[in-house]
């Protein structure tokens, strides 16, 4: 069933929903951008429909709600660890198809990998109800169609924002009562069918081609260009990597918190083991590690590419390194290697 609601009606629906749900959506944080007088759009709790930024892609992904940059996982004393309580209220999460599909990718790691289910992801994921934000087309960094992540049916409601109001498809009946009395509409969400930017993921037929690709000189370009800040991985819809850190307060602490904090394979030290030995000591090696993971390694393990083509890594890169161009270079290098190896 679909409806049309004016912005005013939508705000009434939202305030009713807020009695039961926490609502997270992309929100503008004015003047908090990297450069002076630029904004940041990132996920936060919203209480008004006007707070939701729908016509611009958020700088940071929806994953931050489910899998936050930082969270306490344990409280401890000298003798005991106690798991943190975590969120309890159910959540409505406004997200575009790329962000919703990214959760399939994250879930394979958090819920399945190695047969271990991550408590913290699982308990949060259980609370999430996606509200699909119909994507108005993204921008020139987007390539969801190339990755097959432009569509989804994983949502309880779908929304199209307009000047005078919202069109809403209610897919999960439990939300129908909130729209009682609203005007009926024949709205169903449309999905982006073509992006301005396209990506061809290279075919890497075997380990020898992979090995040659790892050693290909193309990665050396990034030794100088990439600044290894990790902004791409923080902005990534699918990156899951984290590190664990114990936090204590005061000089002679007896209690503290064990935190899980987002980590980045692009930042030097990610692979350092006790004693100081580390792998991938150049920016180019770290770039290769990331790009191969997104466009090859993950697929070998889980059967689908990791990248959902949201393009946020490109948007956030302070060094103007677009992932699409890098994948293009990798595809060319792979072709060259296959020809050399007669494959």
């Amino acid at each position, binding site marked *: 069933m679909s409806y049309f609601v004016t912005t005013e009606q939508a705000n009434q629906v939202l305030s009713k929903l807020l009695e039961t749900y926490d609502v997270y959506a992309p929100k503008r944080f004015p003047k908090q951008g*990297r450069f002076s007088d630029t904004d940041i759009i990132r996920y936060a709790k919203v209480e008004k429909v006007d707070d939701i930024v729908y016509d611009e892609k958020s700088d940071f992904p929806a994953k931050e709600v489910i899998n936050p940059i930082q969270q306490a996982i344990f409280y401890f004393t000298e003798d005991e660890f106690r798991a943190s309580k975590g969120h309890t209220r159910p959540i409505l999460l406004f997200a575009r198809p790329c962000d919703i599909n990214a959760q399939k990718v994250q879930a394979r790691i958090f819920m399945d990998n190695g047969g271990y289910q991550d408590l913290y992801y699982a308990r949060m994921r259980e609370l999430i109800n996606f509200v699909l934000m119909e994507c108005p087309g993204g921008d020139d960094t987007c390539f969801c169609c190339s990755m097959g992540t432009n569509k989804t049916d994983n949502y309880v409601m779908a929304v199209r924002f307009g000047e005078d109001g919202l069109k809403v498809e209610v897919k999960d009946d439990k939300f129908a009562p909130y729209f009682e009395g609203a005007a009926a509409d024949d709205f169903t969400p449309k999905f982006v069918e073509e992006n301005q930017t396209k990506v061809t993921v290279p075919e890497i037929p075997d380990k020898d081609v992979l090995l040659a690709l790892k050693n290909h000189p193309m990665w050396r370009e990034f030794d100088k260009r990439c600044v290894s800040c990790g*902004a791409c991985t923080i902005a990534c819809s699918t990156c899951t990597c984290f590190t664990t850190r114990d936090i204590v307060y005061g000089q002679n602490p007896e209690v503290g918190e064990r935190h899980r*904090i*987002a980590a980045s394979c692009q930042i030097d030290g990610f692979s350092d083991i006790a004693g100081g030995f580390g792998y991938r000591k150049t920016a180019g090696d770290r770039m290769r590690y990331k790009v191969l993971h997104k466009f090859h390694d993950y697929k070998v393990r889980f059967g689908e590419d990791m990248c959902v083509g949201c393009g946020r890594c490109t948007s*956030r890169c302070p060094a103007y390194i677009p992932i699409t161009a890098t994948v293009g270079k990798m595809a060319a290098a792979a072709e060259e290697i296959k020809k050399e190896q007669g494959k």
Partner: protein
Amino acid sequence: MNHDINIGKVRTNCWRQSKVDGEFMLQLRVPGGVIPVEYLQYASEIATKWGDGNFHIGTRLTLDFPGIKYEDIPAVNKYLKKYIKGIEEDLCGVDMQKLAHEPHEWDEDSGYPTIGARNISACIGNRHCICGNVDTTDMARKLEALIFPSNYHIKINVAGCPNDCIKAHMADFGIVGVAKIDYHPERCIGCGACVKACKHGATRVLSLNELTGKIDKDPCCCVGCGECVKACPTAAWSRNPKKLYRVILGGRTGRQTPRTGKMFLNWVTEDVVLGVINNWQKFSAWALDYKPVYLHGGHLIDRAGYHEFKKRILEGVELNPEAMVAEQMFWHETEYRSNFNVKKPEDHLTAGPGSQG
């Protein structure tokens, strides 16, 4: 050649004497160094019609036209009307019918009325620069309306950030855009990029706290540049939206006592900056006993002494809560001649009523 030229008067109208007999160079004001490109047609016209076909970007970001004959000055002055009205009145809101804030008739065919208040220099600021914290063009234009036209000299340089590419430290007043930085610890991953950026490009005020995994800051020594914001991959640092400024006082070059300016005000709002500069005419008038001379503004501060200057320049200015003011001011001059300032008491220069002979 046989000329009868009042060089002082011509200079007051922004014409500079040339070493070439009978020639002058026009200096067009470009407040903040930014003008809409259509005004370049005036530059082209002046240079080709009256000048030698070139223009020079002046050291204070003026557009300079050398090689203009003294005889052509009235024609050029008349031609300048549209440029002056467009830039000064329309763009900057200058009241051309005033002189040092007092009513004074300006003949619009007579070119620039005064040279005292020098062109306000500014870097490109945050309209373009990735480092800039403030809109320097906007600030320069607002300041222009406060200092021009006037026969009291003042040089103002406006820098978008503490990197100070425009050399705010070398002007009577250097206005530097600074930012108070907000920290969002919940977004901080403790990667240390900001610590490195601050160490490399600023004042080493950040350190990684090993106990909390977060960043400790020595706010006292933060210059407010925003390098931490630029470096952060997670947007855990952001510039506080309140635009703030640092005011550097008394920098100058010259043959006698060049010196770098010192910090006079820190973390002040635009209103404070404008209030201070607005007092400059009154201060100068007092210091020179209402008898303007061709003397750079910084020397008036020396003559009055810092404390007297401070009292007068801050008169009626309401400081914002964050504002800091220099209690004392100890400039360090380059004394080309040792003990330059040691001289007979009767030779000491002074300020205030009756001081100017």
